[in-house]
């Protein structure tokens, strides 16, 4: 009998091109997503060394990080120039590099354009059982489809472009099992924030995490992508959810997904990938869904998670002295006083978007709360940024954009937007933002910006009341 294997081991073993004596493996990469920020130096490297892209057919380029999310065409259908010269330069570099190296490129005004991690699954470019890389740490997102996906640096981008492989060592495997049933108002985002709180920001270091259990099985693909997206926030190299009927139903008919007999062969293979019953993970963590409330971060690390009913912690109550120090710094940066109820914290900005929460389901969840309501007067800036042109189109077909606009929120063009302070969408220094993105690091949403990570419904609730709010109070 073959040795029982985990999903991770099966994918890994299927991609080993060569193994060196020290255990390092040359791993074949099935899919490479390229964007404007982490690729210019890689293409420059290829050019200098006179190298070509080995498999342009497995590579897809799309701009997202720098692109402003305001209108891209003017009234006459002309391209609106990008004001920031450095952003413009990076975007032009990608626009030049993609055709020069024979790579398919989705341009900024194409309806397919969007955040790399939204575009990949949506186009059926990302598939179960594949290895997927991108020069962005939230590449783990695609693990929601059962792909082994991880972020790489620019040297590795160059390495993959030139060789379609990476030299890697095998990670350990961890199972995070979420059992039970989610309560009302609790979404995939709350699950992953809670997991990050439990594991800590480095709890998954050196591991690939497989998310299992009744809660994960019951989630839509959108929800699974949200969870796997933040695997990196608890330190994991990648996150995985075993592909199942939900996965196949999501992928079937997507433009780049296999068709006809090929589809059937693919599904049969994907079904064989599930972790064998007798397989053993290096580590197992079990989480009870009943313990998960709508969640929110209070500090500057994604592990600083509380239920919305919680109070800002007192640093002196942390056992670890370095943790105390970090908490003090976090609170000073966040402008928070220990003992404050989370629901008493006012926000001036609301951001609904990012590769964590900008898919159609996320927008529906936010719209359900905002319907017939208005944003609070103290909320100065509230934007909804769909993850792709196709998500935008779908949302408009459902009339969601009207709900957002009527509530006083701005409806934008797709891109990374205020997830990171690289494009014009930034949170002003000293102000707070209820944000559906994935990182609350110092300066992440702009210098001095104070981020509270929440789910789309919670962000919508904060927009309505002007404070961090328990979304369950706005549900009926």
């Amino acid at each position, binding site marked *: 009998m073959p040795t029982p294997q985990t999903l991770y081991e099966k994918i890994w073993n299927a991609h080993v091109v060569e193994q*060196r004596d020290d255990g390092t493996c040359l791993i*074949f990469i099935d899919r490479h997503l390229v964007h404007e920020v982490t690729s210019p130096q890689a293409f420059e490297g290829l050019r200098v060394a006179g190298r070509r892209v080995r498999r342009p057919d497995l590579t897809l380029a799309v701009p997202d990080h720098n692109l402003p999310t305001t209108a891209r065409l003017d009234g006459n259908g002309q391209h609106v120039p990008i004001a920031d010269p450095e952003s413009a330069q990076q975007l032009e570099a990608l626009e030049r590099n993609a055709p020069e190296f024979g790579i398919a490129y989705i341009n900024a005004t194409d309806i397919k354009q969007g955040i790399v991690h939204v575009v990949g699954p949506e186009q059926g470019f990302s598939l179960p059982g594949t290895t997927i890389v991108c020069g962005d740490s939230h590449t783990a997102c695609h693990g929601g489809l059962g792909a082994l996906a991880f972020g790489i640096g*620019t*040297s590795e981008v160059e*390495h993959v472009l030139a060789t379609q492989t990476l030299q890697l060592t095998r990670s350990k495997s961890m199972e995070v099992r979420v059992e039970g049933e989610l309560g009302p108002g609790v979404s995939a985002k709350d699950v992953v924030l809670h997991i990050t709180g439990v594991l800590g920001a480095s709890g998954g270091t050196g591991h690939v995490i497989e998310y299992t259990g009744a809660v994960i099985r019951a989630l839509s693909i959108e929800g699974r992508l949200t969870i796997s997206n933040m695997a990196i926030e608890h330190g994991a190299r990648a996150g995985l959810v075993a592909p199942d009927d939900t996965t196949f139903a999501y992928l079937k008919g997507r433009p780049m997904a296999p068709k006809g007999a090929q589809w059937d*062969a693919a599904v049969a293979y994907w079904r064989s990938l599930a972790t064998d019953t007798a397989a053993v993970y290096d580590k197992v963590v079990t989480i009870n869904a009943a313990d998960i409330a709508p969640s929110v971060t209070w500090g500057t*690390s994604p592990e600083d998670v509380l239920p919305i009913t919680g109070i800002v912690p007192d640093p002196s109550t942390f056992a670890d002295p370095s943790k105390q120090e970090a908490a003090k710094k976090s609170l000073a940066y966040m402008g928070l006083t220990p003992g404050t109820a989370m629901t008493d914290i006012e926000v001036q900005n609301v951001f609904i978007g990012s590769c964590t929460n900008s898919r159609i389901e996320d927008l529906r969840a936010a719209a359900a709360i905002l319907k017939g309501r208005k944003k609070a007067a103290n909320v100065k800036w509230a934007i909804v940024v769909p993850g792709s042109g196709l998500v935008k189109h779908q949302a408009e077909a459902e009339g969601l954009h009207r709900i957002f606009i009527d509530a006083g929120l701005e409806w934008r063009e797709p891109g990374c937007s205020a997830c990171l302070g*690289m494009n014009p969408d930034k949170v002003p220094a000293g102000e707070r933002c209820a944000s559906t993105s994935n990182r609350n690091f110092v300066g992440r949403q702009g210098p001095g910006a104070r981020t509270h990570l929440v789910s789309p419904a919670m962000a919508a609730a904060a927009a309505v009341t002007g404070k961090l709010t328990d979304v369950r109070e706005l549900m009926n």
Partner: protein
Amino acid sequence: MKPISSVIGRAYPLGLKNIDTDIIIPAAWLKTISRSGLGKGAFQSLREVSGNVFDDPAYAGAPILIAGDNFGCGSSREHAAWAMADLGISAVIAPSFSDIFSGNAFKNGLLAIVLPQDAIDRLMEVAQTDSIHIDLETQTVTTPFQDRFAFEIDPFRKHCLMNGVDEIGLTLKSSDAISTYETKISAQQPWLTPNIA
């Protein structure tokens, strides 16, 4: 890549844990299309505080940085390694590193050395006044006070660092193995080639 066998000199005693990539190089600096010049943006938010170690003349030009747990967590930006190299740092010593950062560091000839917290505490002390010696060949960190800490490093990485091996060039030697793999997979799983129009 330049071969590297040892790093000797003063060390910035930073000590903080969870130094993330936004601290190492803020997002505003990512808009460059070349690898150099990022040192000016390195550790920007820390350098805004007066009395910070980076602007303390005692440590000017230090080639080593000592930090706490989980150094380099956060984004995959390789700019973090480029910024540190541009600042003149050749080695970081910490109790743990994020996986992506240690990969990026290695690829840019920046040593990421893992030592336990008590060794870090001792080195933080020494760094106040004296220099530190990292020897890659013997895998040790030593001080003028007879301290001697051994560290682990992946033998392949050690070989590449000491010989300045270009990883892409090395992999391209396996081109035939890659071709064999491609042929095998496209026969077994023909649906793997996406239909990119």
